[in-house]
Structures are given as structure tokens and as C-alpha cells.
């Protein structure tokens, strides 16, 4: 399942660096589906309008695993902004995800 990067229109807040996120999955496993769902939720909550998600299925394109040094699945790679950060797991621990992506949590 590979969707094109989606970019939302910039909001009225001052321009923050856009987040380019790449989620590596291996087929439609429970963990993969959960990870994608969690990711979308987090992004919509804290990164409204500044993110782009790319999902790469290693079952279909195995040769891409070497490029980002992917071992574990699912892995979320934050390519932009630098430095690269990797988060492994199904992203169920939201706090850790935010710390890992270095996102300032938006207080709701």
C-alpha cells in the first residue's frame, strides 16, 4: 500500500519545518496496521498541516530496506528535519513517539 505524500495547506501558524515521515511495514500485519493508524492519529493531533507520510511495504520492495538501514518492522523514519530519527514499534506509546520525533505536543 503506497500512497502519495500528502501535504495539507499551511496553516496560519508561523512556518515550522515540514516533517517527512516514512513508515516501513511488512505486509498487512496487525502491528503494521496499528502503526499506521497510530501514526495518522498522532500527526493529525500534533503536526497538523506540516507532515507528509510515505508508507513503504518491504514485501513489495525489499531493496529499500538497505537504504535506511531498516531492521525492525514497523519502523518510522523521520527524514526531515535532520537528523534522521528512527522509531521502532507499533507506535502505541504516544509519548515516546513524540519524544522520538522531537515534536512539541500540542496541548488539547
Amino acid at each position, binding site marked *: 500500500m503506497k500512497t502519495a505524500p500528502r501535504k495539507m495547506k499551511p496553516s496560519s501558524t508561523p512556518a515550522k519545518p515540514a516533517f517527512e515521515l516514512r513508515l*516501513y511495514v*511488512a505486509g498487512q500485519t496487525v*502491528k503494521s496496521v*496499528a*502503526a499506521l493508524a497510530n501514526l495518522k492519529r498522532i500527526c493529525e493531533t500534533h503536526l497538523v498541516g506540516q507532515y507528509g507520510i510515505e508508507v513503504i511495504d*518491504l*514485501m513489495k520492495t*525489499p*531493496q529499500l*530496506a*538497505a537504504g535506511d*538501514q*531498516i*531492521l*525492525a*518492522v*514497523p*519502523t518510522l523514519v523521520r527524514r526531515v528535519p535532520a*537528523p*534522521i*530519527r*528512527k*522509531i*521502532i*514499534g*507499533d*507506535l*502505541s*506509546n504516544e509519548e*515516546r*513517539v513524540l*519524544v*522520538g520525533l522531537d515534536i512539541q505536543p500540542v496541548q488539547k
Partner: protein
Amino acid sequence: MNMVNHKSKSPSAATPRGILKSPTGIAGLDEITGGGLPTGRPTLVCGSAGCGKTMLATEFLVRGAMEFGEPGVFMMFEENAEELTANVRSLNFDLTKLVARKKIVLDHVHIERSEIEETGEYDLEGLFIRLGHAIDSIGAKRVVLDTVEALFAGLPNHAILRAELRRLFRRLKDRGMTAVITGERGEHSMTRYGLEEYVADCVIMLDQRMRDQVSTRRLRVVKYRGTAHGTNEYPFLIGANGLSVLPITSLQLDHQASPERAPTGIPKLDAMLGGKGFYRASSVLVSGSPGTGKSSIGAQFADAACRRGERALIFAYEESPAQMLRNMASIGLRLQPWVKKGLLQIHSSRPTMHGLEQHLVMIHDTVRAFQPRVVVIDPISNLTIDGNETEVKPTLMRLIDILKSRQITSLFTSLTSGIAALEDSGVGVSSLMDSWLLLRNVEFNGERNRTLQVLKSRGMAHSNQVREFILTDRGIDLVEAYLGADRVLTGTARVAQETQERAAAGLRRENHARQLRQLATKRKSITAQIAALQAEAEAEEAEVNFAIAQENLDVAAAQQNIGAMTCLRGGSAPSTNDKKGRA
């Protein structure tokens, strides 16, 4: 795909069919394991840092690709591809070329701990996918994981990691991959993280230890399921062409015994050895105190072999090749032409540069490459720093085994210190040797001379004489030892005695001549005497004859007278007395 099927096609054999093995191509390792590593199963190679695990794994892969037609995947967790390529260049392996020809895939898996954050459940399917993809891209049959323990440092959750590793090895087995997994030696277990739990089919342990400032590498097959294997430690070298393990060859003593002989190059010495020299494939020990000419005998033996067109190998542990050539030239042995022709090779090294086993492996490799018929090792007595007999003897035993099984005649020289017992070979190995020449210096009357004797020579009638030998400028020559009075004389004492004897013989001859002359003279005088006496006898005989004749004449005359008187007187007929007178 070239696989060694161990004990397979014999339904009548008592042993069951063995497991399939993949040959490694590493010298000696295939012999120890009885054919190679188990096919389709993982093998664990563990050892402390710097033991050669990566080298062994790399060689397994490279030789698999080049010699056995099995492409391989090298998944490295510590070095990257460039570093590995540079490192194995010293072993003459060109990984770049192999990668270009799609025989090998190098995949560097890098985990940066600081980059990773764990959030929730995960598995290592990514790694599996990478590995699977690499295997499929070239159709690999061999896999190396070096060293998978790096994952433990990178990933925080060891429980998941262990479970996944178990799954990984299962996956490798399912795909039929012959895998080599390297692991670092642990304090209390074979590997630091206990990989031996998962890789239980075959475990090889590498070791590097120091003794007397010399390092020795050893290899041991700790475990090998499904086959009989050598369980001892075997020394190995990392040489210019990869690893070289020295298996203990047949200690079963089933060598062939050849009836052919190898002349020594010294004709009179050959005569002492039953007329023809040493037996081929026998071991000869030449021992003696310093300066007795042991190296010279060894060099002459090699020279004789080269003259016959056979290859000879000299291992010199005290002189450099150039020095040996120069020194032997001084006694008329021109070895340089043989070196140029490729019939002779001289290898020198300081004996304490390597451990004993390394020497053995080096000798084994050189012998295998050069295939000589004669090997000279000069000397064996300084192979250990303190000349420890107990250490040298097993090494020597193995060396002699190797040489005998290749039908190579070997000559060893050994230095015995001047004060040691006369028949001390210096390394206590005389029972391993078939022939033993003892060289001694005899000191007498202010000079030292060299003597040689054959202490033993199995299987032939040998002389029991002590012969003097001299190093002339045309090689070594033996002289009859001179027995004067009741001891052996050598050197100038011999020369002096010989001169005396010659003079005495001359004198005796003169004496005899004089006596013969005297006899002749005497005979002549006696003959003259006899002649004189005979002449006298003849003279007397003549006299007597004359007297008789005279008397007869007188009687005849008297008769005649009487006759005539009678005639004149009476005219009677003459009487019967005068029958004599007339007629």
C-alpha cells in the same frame, strides 16, 4: 553445486549415511571435519578478539563462490563493506570483483543506538527481508553473519531479539542456507550472549594464546552433530592465501616402505651405509657438537638430490639463504645454480619468530606447494627457546609423519652441546629417526679433527667404523680412520704415523733386499767350493786312471819282454802267458 557426500552410497556399510557437508576449501579444515561444514545448517565460530573469525568466515564464502560454485551473502554488523574488502585483500581475495560478478553480496547492517526509540511491539522482519532479498538476488547458498551480537548492543529489548534470532536461524535452515555465524568469546559461556543455544549444529572455537612471547593460533571443533570429527586442538596460520589448518595426519604409522635408496652425495658415506645410501622416505638425524659439519652434510645431501634432477628444500633456522650459499660454496658446493633452476629452495626464519605449530604449518604448506623429494631441516634443536624436549617431540613426530606419507627423505641436524652425553641427540627424538649419524670432534695432540660414525641405520647393514672426514674444497670426503697402537688417530697425528709407517716399510724392504743379496753371495761361494772339490776329484780320478794305465803298460811291456827273451833264449813257443802281448 559441489557437495561432499559423506559415507553415502553404500547400503551394506555398517555406519549409517552421514549428513551432507559443504566443503570450505580451507586447507586442513575439511579434513578435520570430515568434508566441511554441515550443509543447510548454521555453524557457530567463536573466539576472542583477533582470532580470525571474520577471516575464516570470509574465506568460507569466497572459496564457496570461486571454487564450489556457491554464491554467498555476507551480512556484516560491525565493519562496513569497504573495510572488509580492504582487510581481506591481504589474503588475496578480491571482494570487489566477486561482487561485480554477482557471486557475493555484501550487506552492512548498521544500528545506531542513539537513533532508535522503542515504542511498542515490533519484530525483526526487516532484517529477514533484507537477508531474503540478498539471497534471492544472486541465488546464494552460503550466508555469513558477522557478528550478529552487535544487534544486542543496538536494540534495547533483548527478549524480542533472542526470539527473532531463533526465528532467523530457523528461517535460514528452512531455506537450506549453509550459514556461518561468528560470535565473540564470553566469560562463562562460549559466546557473550549465549548464541550457542540457537546454533547448536556445529561449533568451532578459535583461540590465540601466548607462550614464551610467541603467539600460537589454534582451532577446535567443539561440537559437530551427526558426524565423527577430530576433537583435538589444531594449530593454524593465517597466511598469504587464507587460513591453513594443520590436521594431525595418520598417527597410524601406515606409511609405505620403499626399497629405493637416496645417495648422500658422499660416495664413501654411501659405502658405509650398505653401499647405496639412505632409504627413500626415511628420516635421518645428524647430530654433533658445534662446528662438526652437520649443515655441510645436509647441504651436500640436497646438492646430490638436485644433481639427480630432484627437488630439494632446505629449512635453515640459523643462516640466511645468502649466507648458506656463500658458506657452502667455500667447500665446493655450488648451490646457486640449483636455486636458479628452481630445483632448490632455501627458507630461513628465526625459530622463535613463530610458535612450533606455526613452523609446522609453514613447512607443511611449503612442502605441499613445492613437492620436493628431499627436505633438510637445519637445525631442529633450537626450535624452542630453552630447547624443551617435551614440546619439540610431538611437533617433530607430526612433521616426520607428514614427510613420510609423501615419500620424502628427510634429514635433520641437531646441535648437542659439547658437554652433553655423547649419544644425546639433543632433542630426545632418536627413536623417531631411521638413521643416525654422529659427528664428533676428536681432540688429540693439540688439534681437533672431525669424525663421523653411523650409530644406527634401520634396515641395512652399516659400517661400525669411526671415519675421519674432511671438508675439502671439492666437498666432503671421508678418510679411513687410522688405527695406530690402540686408538684412532686423526689429523696430523695420522699423517705423522703414516709417514713413520712408510719409512719403516721402506727400511724393511731394504733389509730384505740386503739379506737376499747375502744369500746369493753365499750361494755363489758354495757353488765355487763345490766346483773346486769336483775338479780335485776329477784330477785324482785322472791320476788313478793314469797310474792304472801305466801299470798295465808296464805289465804288457814286461810280458812282451819275457816273450821276446824267451824267444831269444830258447825259441820255444810262447807260453800261454803271453796271450796279451801279441795280436
